[in-house]
């Protein structure tokens, strides 16, 4: 989406600004090439990297493509378990699950789970979380 906006802006600029057409078109071509590479490579790369896993004690996620991040939180420290579906996700039947702890630095996000898996994950986490007491800070 970001790329589309950028390309559109450049097209408009090229059309409006009369002079130096070749330079504009070169930049536009580079942008399009970058966009195509990004759009084709990134999702595969991300799909290969993104993982998640839960055990009885902890939740684990792995995300990112250039900058990769692994996050681990003990079940006993979980504050909330949210699941959300945007319009696009609803179209494809996907759910995002966010697990937050008392720290502002480390919400764990699992993107694009299918509905059944997400429901199972949320139920499981909720059940496990309820088993622990304390204010988890």
């Amino acid at each position, binding site marked *: 989406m970001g790329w589309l906006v950028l390309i559109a802006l450049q097209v408009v600029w090229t059309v409006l600004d009369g002079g130096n057409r070749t330079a504009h078109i070169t930049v536009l071509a580079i942008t399009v090439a970058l966009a195509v590479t990004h759009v084709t490579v990134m999702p595969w790369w991300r799909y290969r990297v993104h993982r998640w896993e839960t055990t009885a004690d902890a939740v684990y996620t792995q995300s990112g493509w250039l900058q990769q991040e692994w996050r681990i939180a003990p079940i006993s420290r979980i504050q909330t378990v949210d699941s959300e579906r945007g319009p696009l996700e609803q179209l494809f039947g996907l759910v995002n699950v966010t697990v937050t702890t008392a720290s*502002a630095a480390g919400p764990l996000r699992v993107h694009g789970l299918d509905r059944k898996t997400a429901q199972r994950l949320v139920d499981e986490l909720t059940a496990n979380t309820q088993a622990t007491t304390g204010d988890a800070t």
Partner: protein
Amino acid sequence: MTAMDDTTDALGGEPADAVGGGPVAEPGGELVQWRRLSRRMLVIHPFQEVVRSAPALIGLLFAGSTQGGHGHLWSLAGLGIMLLIGTLRWFTTTYRVTPQYVQVRKGLLRRQVLTVPRDRIRTVDVTSHVLHRLLGLSRVEVGTGRSDRKDGGTLKLDALHTHEVDRLRDELLHRRPAPASAAAASVAPGPVALDSVAPGSAALGTVAPGSVVPGSVASGPVAPGSVAGSPHAGATATSEMDVHPGTAGPMTEVELTALRPAWIRFGPFTLSGVVTVGVLAGFISRIVSEGNVDLLSIGPVRQVVDSFNQGALWLRITGSVATLVIFVAIASTLGYVLAFWRFRLTRTTGGTLHVTRGLITTRATTLEERRLRGIEVSEPLLLRAVGGARLIAVATGLRVGLGAQRGGSMLLPPAPLAEAQNVAARVIGVSEPLTADLLPHGPAALRRRFTRALAVWGTLTAALLALSYWAGFPAWTWQTALVLTVPAMPLAADRYRSLGHTISGGHLVTRWGSVVRRRVALDRDGIIGWNLRRSFFQRRAGLATLTATTAAGRQGYSVWDVDLAEALRTADQGIPGLLTPFLVSAGQPSEAAGGPAPASLPMPAQVEGPLAHRDA
């Protein structure tokens, strides 16, 4: 009164007449009276309102006099209204402390009832400005640790009698029932009674002799409770009251440290004066430009400027730099004295840390120790050069603020490093996390520091060079960038030297930074989880940044650019067993790409290995 006001009152549940009215029944059947603020606020509130609206009133005066000559009448009327509003604030504000809640009712047109459950109270701040102090009053802010909103969650009482404030604070933080006679002014063991302590009096080395490890100046592993509760430690207590820990008697305090006049020498190095000088300069220039004052027409100024203009260029430059430095140094020192005069850090038997300070405006901050998750020793570059450091508490619900006050989490103003370590050890109860040697992060981290410094400045220089070539940027921009690359090199080396981490004395210790070097000791129990971040270049260098997330302080404390295997080992030690199920090859971290790659199949409970702690 309009219909809307009526509705508001109805929603508030009480008609305005009932303010300060009869006792209200608690669920427990108790009757708790609503209390008013100090009567002396009848003086301060109107004064505050007038000061606050002074610009508007003056504007009114000017606007009125230009139009019809009735400006003074208008502004007098405005003054009257402001005085009335100020007076009404006293009549409309009431508060009460019930066994479960602290409640404040306020507002005239928009009635508000603020309720804070008492077990959520985390801090109690007491501030007295000049006017308050003259009248023996203090403002109370009750903090509930709502760190997500800037002004949310604090409940302000402006203002109460100082002795009533002490009682209230004890009542709130130490969870004791209020003394039977609320007005018993004689009960004032609070640290505001500073007179009994000469600054610098025997603050240190008074821990019980048996518990001091020989050879270490800092106290050995002294549990917080044992210091506070043991009678001999009370030798430093300022209160002359009897020691009855845990009873309804007055709290005893153990002094952890107090400001010594010698510390003021660190004042010039805090640089807090830069802001002051900046503000002052802006103020003067604004007066000059708005008032059309010609500074040069003032005799002495003219002489100085004339003699200045006759000097050589280098003389002029050094002259102005020296003047600036002197001004900043003076302002910083003044700021230090104003903010930290009569600074004292004490621990009460009720399990709270207590900070009092201030020359003109006095502040007292109380922090519950059970919210404490660690401590931060921070050394800004200049301060480090003269061997100074300051302490910042890492506590839940207390986000690290900006400025000299650090949002109330400051535990020690700039002071000698040894003193800072000493105090920190006494605050967290163990000294190893502050003195233990840290593991360096290896040559890869060093390379990364240099490549990063070079990459940033190199790219900047190149970009500016290109811009000056193509787009006609002035040449000095890229030249400056090039020159700045030079000091970036020692800075990079120093940044590497700062890096280090270890796990010691039940705390995760990490140190980083050069311009401000910070060493954080974070209680292992305070660690909520781990984030392991690896950028593209970090992956190629086999490094990772490990962040311990926590509910306290900065919310996350990082071990920067550490070897991946070491990062995993640290994380595993930090929270034993947490990582174990996810490490495919725990016990033998391979050097291969990615090291011990985490088990990576989205199947819950896929690995059901024993959760025993394994050392890598």
